[in-house]
């Protein structure tokens, strides 16, 4: 047996925008085990639900993470709405769907940029993030905020989009779709990118299920599970099929995320064409009493929101099982047998969100 050594990775590392630590057990340069540590910036946000009014807590749920902000607000609101028997207006459901899909585009473009940066492909990184700016501008136009825009409330949404805004979104995604094509071509056809990603971190379908993988990580193994098919918000009125790939490697994970950007453009177009007129929220009276597990498909995968209410304005428990929490065990599994030099890319290909994990 080769001599074993332990290399600490993180919590500060050039490819990690957020702190996470791994103790990598190596034999020569081959990883035989990875031991994680998290919690460096744990904020205890779930605990705040015990001392904050359940309506005010929406603002805290949205601040769990910048990239997944809208989805966290929506997931929390939908859980409380289910307990209270509140049905948001159809227009609110469509608006939520549009913002959710814009958030998915935002998240995947951010990830593509980080991946390019980790590979040293700086121009591709800049192109990906340049394109991402356009979706942030659309958030700004429709909500007044670029990252955390606080438009969810229990019973619907706080802001509406007029026809001019919907037209601007439609025009912007048409432009973005054209501009995405050469960027996608570089990720999917470039020789060097292919060499770095193909065959790296292969996850087999049965292994993915056993390890608890979710989102693009799961779908890249050929498993067509996408929580949007549960039909929350307006997804039950839109036509789409989960994007899958079959190889289960880092390239497949990249491919799924790129195709999901195109899918989000199509879903936004459908939602804009079908959005009904009407109110954007309903009044909510009283306090929730009961419990519910809500599932939604965040850009990084399935997230689970648990709310337990006791009939007062303070909830007993709010629990958020983030996609990254679920994707850490498969990531650790993938590292066994990989080379030390591939560790940064493998961490990136699960699209980790430490901010969500440190909720």
């Amino acid at each position, binding site marked *: 047996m080769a001599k074993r050594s332990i290399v600490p990775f993180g919590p500060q590392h050039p490819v990690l925008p957020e702190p996470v630590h791994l103790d990598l057990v190596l034999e020569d340069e081959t990883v035989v085990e990875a031991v994680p540590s998290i*919690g460096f910036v744990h904020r205890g946000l779930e605990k705040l639900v015990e001392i904050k009014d359940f309506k005010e807590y929406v603002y805290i749920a949205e601040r769990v993470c910048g990239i997944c902000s809208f989805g966290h607000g929506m997931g929390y609101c939908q859980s409380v709405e289910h307990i209270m028997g509140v049905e948001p207006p159809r227009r609110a459901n469509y608006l939520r769907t549009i913002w959710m899909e814009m958030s998915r585009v935002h998240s995947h473009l951010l990830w593509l940029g980080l991946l390019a940066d980790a590979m040293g492909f700086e121009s591709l990184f800049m192109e990906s993030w340049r394109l991402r700016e356009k979706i942030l501008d659309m958030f700004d136009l429709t909500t007044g905020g670029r990252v955390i825009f606080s438009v969810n409330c229990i019973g619907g949404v706080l802001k509406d989009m007029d026809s001019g805004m919907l037209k601007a979104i439609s025009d912007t995604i048409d432009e973005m779709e054209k501009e995405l094509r050469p960027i996608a071509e570089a990720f999917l056809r470039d020789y060097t990118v292919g060499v770095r990603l193909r065959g790296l971190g292969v996850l087999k379908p049965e292994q993915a299920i056993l390890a608890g993988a979710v989102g693009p990580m799961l779908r890249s193994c050929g498993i067509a599970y996408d929580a949007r098919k*549960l039909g929350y918000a307006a997804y039950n009125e839109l036509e789409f099929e989960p994007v899958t790939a079959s190889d289960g490697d880092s390239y497949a994970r990249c491919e799924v995320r790129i195709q999901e950007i195109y899918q989000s453009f199509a879903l936004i177009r459908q939602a804009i064409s079908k959005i009904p007129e009407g109110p954007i929220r309903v009044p909510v009276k009283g306090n929730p009493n009961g419990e519910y597990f809500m599932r939604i498909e965040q850009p990084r995968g399935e997230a689970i929101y648990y709310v337990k209410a006791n009939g007062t304005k303070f909830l007993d428990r709010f629990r958020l099982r983030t996609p990254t929490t*679920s994707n850490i065990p498969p990531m650790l599994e993938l590292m066994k047998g990989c080379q030390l030099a591939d560790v940064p890319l493998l961490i990136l290909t699960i699209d980790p969100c430490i901010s969500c994990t440190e909720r």
Partner: protein
Amino acid sequence: MEYLNTIEPITMEQFLPMVIQFKMDGWRLVQICACRLPEQYELSYSFAKGFDMRTLRLTVGEDEPVSSITQVYPCAFIQENEVAELFGVKIESMENDYHHKLYRIARDTPFKEKG
């Protein structure tokens, strides 16, 4: 279409046999959640198959040990360590037990006390 989303209270004796049955029937583990009750913990284990989700609800005393399910679902270790480190739930026979070193936090079991 409405999918299954149930919470089923169970006893400690039923717990492991039911988890094993879920595994044999092809359900995947999706989450483990702890909730503080006066001198007790409420543990929820959710499993999904397709779009159906079933949650097993176990209520345990404050110092009562709970068997780990990592022998059946190896991926449970991350959420079992979380429940042990944030709430102080005593999980027994856990594979990959990090002994309160997964979360690098300043306080022990910060979610144990209410409020």
